[in-house]
């Protein structure tokens, strides 16, 4: 069986600055992988390079996703192919309601996947059902996208978008940042509800805390633009005790 995501020897950066320096990572459908690592190790760059943000130069290696070479696809084509990035800092978009945004996105993805667009009534039903499951007020659908949302509301809104778009692979970029413990639990429950044998997840986090709530199958340590160690959930607990000092040393030696 071919992997859902297969990254080999990926090298990427901005201008002359190399950030990813030969990264390998394979995720099978149904698996939840966590990437941990110190600040500056390239975790967020990995999420942006995978999802197709402009401004990064890919200088080597490959990214295969569900039969696609990601480098050939625009950001929107990757979303249609089933890749989803939950943003660390979701953008505020004044003047565009959450509802309009969700409907535009859902129908763009459905069109791209060769499905019929959803009519207004069915869409409304679906959006209400999914948002209520995340404990969101109906009012949040009417508000301007993320404008005036609390940190927890923004992250919940990201998970709502994931639930609507039904991706094959979800990348959660520091989803725990800026959340108190109650908000973290709600968001984690929302993510766990979407775990399935067909779906892969890549959870990027600085802290072990999130992984108490979203249990990973595999934990990777990233440092200096590479995966330097992989293991089971126990690796996260070990890092929580020992910190990233060992890996920072490693990084310094390379610098």
């Amino acid at each position: 069986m071919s992997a859902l995501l297969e990254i080999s020897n990926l090298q990427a950066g901005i201008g002359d600055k190399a950030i990813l320096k030969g990264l390998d990572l394979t995720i099978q459908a149904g698996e939840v992988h966590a990437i941990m690592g110190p600040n500056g190790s390239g975790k967020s760059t990995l999420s942006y390079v995978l999802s197709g943000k402009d401004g990064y130069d890919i200088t080597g290696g490959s990214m295969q996703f569900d039969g696609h070479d990601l480098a050939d696809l625009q950001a929107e084509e990757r979303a249609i192919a089933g890749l989803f990035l939950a943003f660390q800092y979701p953008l505020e978009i004044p003047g565009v309601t959450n509802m309009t945004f969700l409907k535009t996105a859902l129908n763009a993805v459905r069109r791209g996947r060769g499905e019929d667009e959803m009519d207004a009534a069915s869409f409304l039903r679906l959006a209400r059902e999914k948002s209520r499951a995340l404990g969101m007020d109906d009012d949040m659908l009417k508000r301007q996208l993320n404008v005036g949302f609390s940190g927890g509301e923004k992250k919940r809104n990201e998970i709502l978008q994931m639930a609507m778009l039904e991706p094959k692979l979800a990348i959660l970029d520091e989803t725990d940042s800026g959340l108190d413990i109650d908000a973290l639990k709600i968001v984690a429950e929302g993510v766990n509800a979407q775990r399935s044998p067909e779906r892969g997840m890549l959870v990027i986090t600085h802290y072990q805390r999130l992984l108490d709530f979203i249990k990973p199958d595999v934990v990777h340590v990233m440092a200096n633009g590479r995966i330097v160690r992989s293991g089971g959930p126990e690796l996260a607990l070990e890092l929580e005790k020992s910190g990233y000092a060992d890996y920072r040393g490693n990084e310094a030696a390379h610098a």
Partner: protein
Amino acid sequence: MLNALAHFERAKPHLSGDVEARAQALQQAELLGLPTRRVEAWHYTDLPRLLNRASSPSGALTGNDFSALKPHYLVFENGQLSTDAAQLSAEFVAPEADLSADAMTLYNHALAENGVTLNFDNSPETIVVIETKGSETQHFMHRVKLGAGVKATVVDDHAALGYSNVIWHVELAADAQLTLVHIQQSGQYVGHCTANLAANAQFKQMTLLTGGDVARHATHVKLQQAGAKADLHSAILGRAVSHNDVTYTIEHQAADTHSHTTSHQALADAARGVFQGKVIVQRDAQRVDAQMQARAMMLSSEAEINAKPELEIYADDVACAHGTAIGEIDADALFFLRARGIDEASARQLLITGFVEQLLTHCDDKALADVLRRHIEQKISALTLTKLEADHAV
């Protein structure tokens, strides 16, 4: 370009009021001439040059359907009222020429041959739509006077193709509330609105400019008694070589008066935007709250914005602020939308729409907001973004 003397001779037989005084007003106007950039209030809008250049096509006109508001309709075509004003007792009252006025007012006093006079003393809430069409030069003098506690909405739906000189006089008695909406999608409109507000009166003005060749919308509000409030909001979708000028003067003459001014200008192609906002707080006008915010979204490297916010404060216990922000479409916001499957052109369109539709956050009437939203969305879908994409690729 208007030839005022010839126009006056042609219009003379139909002009009401003191025609001799009007002739004098015209003489004085011609002496002063159309305002050029040497006149400070017109620094960014050199009227003779703008009116003399070849006009650019306005694009297809968008019909605005106000039926959900159940309004009274008054339709002017080439200066003539084609509906019945008697239903509202709104018959035109000729201006009295004021020879000390500025040139544009003098031209209007000389040449205004029509307009509406709305005098609501204790009427129930009234909604009036004034539609202007035609391709000839038109001069209007509109008056809106609301008695104590009276509420009204007046929509100036401008889809004429020629040159129009329009004066608005607004008088609001205590606790009166007027919403005045201007939609200009074509032609050359040079408008001046003065509004005088008594205690606790509220004046809300929403100006939407989506395709006129020349648009000059100047508003001068006097908050004369405590509790008076002005909400002045504009949104501009500038395309081709359109010139779009919103100019505000807000005088806080009494204590405890408030004003809130916003402008959102999205400028494509070689469109020009002008925002001038002057807040004056007089010496005894304490506890005034005046907020002014102008934003511009530049959609092409040839677009131009001129923003000049000013505060003139003579009282010491006030909260006044102004800000100007000029930028392009936010690259991070664009990526966010694309990462949700929305193609780049649609994502840009959504961001431009959201920017312009911030006007609607100030509109409490849902039916009216729906009309404005449909208008904006039709105009944006007609905007050719090919230029943008070319810019983006560079």
